[in-house]
């Protein structure tokens, strides 16, 4: 059986989980959110292969953070080389926390695939958000993936000039990335401009009121998820500030 959620429910759920994941000091809470998100992705049959490959790519960042935290913060040493603490317990914990935070954000973003852009806009409009802001939010959400795509295309075009990017020295790679940074950003912004022009040409803001053939409606499942999210958020606030 396939379950569906209202876009507003998804927004609220992702908002609560991401906020807690970013601000909590407790690794157990982060693990709990991650497992909860894993459960949700299974429940809603979300194809996670793309998101898992992104997480896999972050392993070098995990190692880097652990090493940096171990070297530059005081802690109980696990591995010492020439009087330098290369690995410490506190460094490992901080590294894992950073890794969990990023993983949660990626998994939470996967929940957005449960709804379409059209439904998301309608959801934002029903939350009394002005049309301009609702559409701008959606365009800005697309900016980063478009930029990443533009950069990948630029790299392909550069390798089609006979340049073996993988074989370049780190310094040369850095130079190339710096060189491509501005032109690819300009291309991304031009795409966003063309998108907004297309919106205008389709009669956006031509009259004061807009009608929509979609109406978002909460179901019992939405109320349940919303309640759980709110209770979870409140419990976390109480736990974090020792109110409870």
């Amino acid at each position, binding site marked *: 059986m396939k379950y569906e959620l209202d876009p507003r429910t998804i927004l609220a759920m992702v908002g609560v989980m991401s906020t807690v994941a970013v601000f909590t000091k407790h690794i157990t809470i982060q693990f709990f959110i991650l497992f909860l998100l894993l459960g949700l992705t299974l429940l809603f049959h979300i194809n996670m292969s793309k998101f898992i490959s992104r997480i896999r790519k972050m392993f070098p960042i995990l190692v880097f953070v652990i090493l940096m935290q171990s070297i530059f913060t005081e802690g109980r040493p696990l591995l010492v080389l020439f009087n330098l603490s290369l690995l410490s317990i506190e460094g490992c914990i901080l590294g894992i926390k950073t890794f969990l935070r990023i993983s949660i954000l990626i998994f939470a973003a996967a929940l957005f695939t449960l709804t379409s852009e059209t439904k998301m806009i309608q959801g934002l409009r029903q939350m009394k958000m002005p049309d301009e802001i609702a559409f701008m939010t959606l365009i800005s959400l697309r900016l980063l993936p478009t930029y990443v795509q533009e950069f990948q295309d630029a790299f392909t*075009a550069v*390798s*089609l000039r*006979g*340049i*073996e*990017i993988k074989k370049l020295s780190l310094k040369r790679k850095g130079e190339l990335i710096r060189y491509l940074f501005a*032109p690819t950003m300009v291309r991304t912004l031009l795409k966003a401009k063309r998108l907004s022009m297309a919106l205008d040409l389709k009669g956006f803001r031509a009259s004061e009121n807009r009608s929509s053939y979609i109406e978002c409606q909460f179901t019992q499942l939405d109320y349940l998820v919303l309640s759980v999210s709110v209770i979870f958020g409140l419990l976390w606030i109480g736990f974090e500030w020792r109110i409870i």
Partner: protein
Amino acid sequence: MGNEIVLSIQNISYGYDQILVEALSFDLKQGEIIWLQGENGSGKTTLAKCIMGIHSLLKGDILLHNQSIKKLSSAKISQSIGYLFQQPSLQLFANTVWEECTYFSSFFEHQDEMIERAKEYLALFELNDVLDQHPQLISRGQQQRLALIISLLLDPPFLIFDEPTTALDNDLKHTFLHLISRLKNKGILIISHDEIIEQLPINQKVVIA
């Protein structure tokens, strides 16, 4: 030298979710021009991508100088095959036309040779008047010629032109054909549905249905 097979397409099949083209074979020799024709969406550009190593084959093989392209990186293939995109502006990144021709040559050992070649082609393709202009701000025809120069900088024995006459007016189309006819001793694969290509000395026509 003139009869050397540069590129050999051997019984290849390719596509995306489903097979677009099945069992396609042809050879290209140095100095030959092949005209690849086909309907929109028939897989002409995808064939170019397969040759350049940026799209995988489902079956068969492509040999470049008797070596399978499956073992070569796109960069390595590009050192033998110059590729002119359907949209030339996608190949341009620099701040000026001159920089576009020279910046990327700094990644190669024979940089001076490439710069000399750039000067020669800039004069030949009449772009010396726009050397200081931004590549995204010059006309489409000039962008086309600039992208063509870029594909020639490594002096590859083989060239792929993907819809080179699209969005060019008649005068520019003729100028372009004139430029192609001056590229002697190169094996050229032209992907186009434009009948004007017929004016070139075509050695072989390949039709993808």
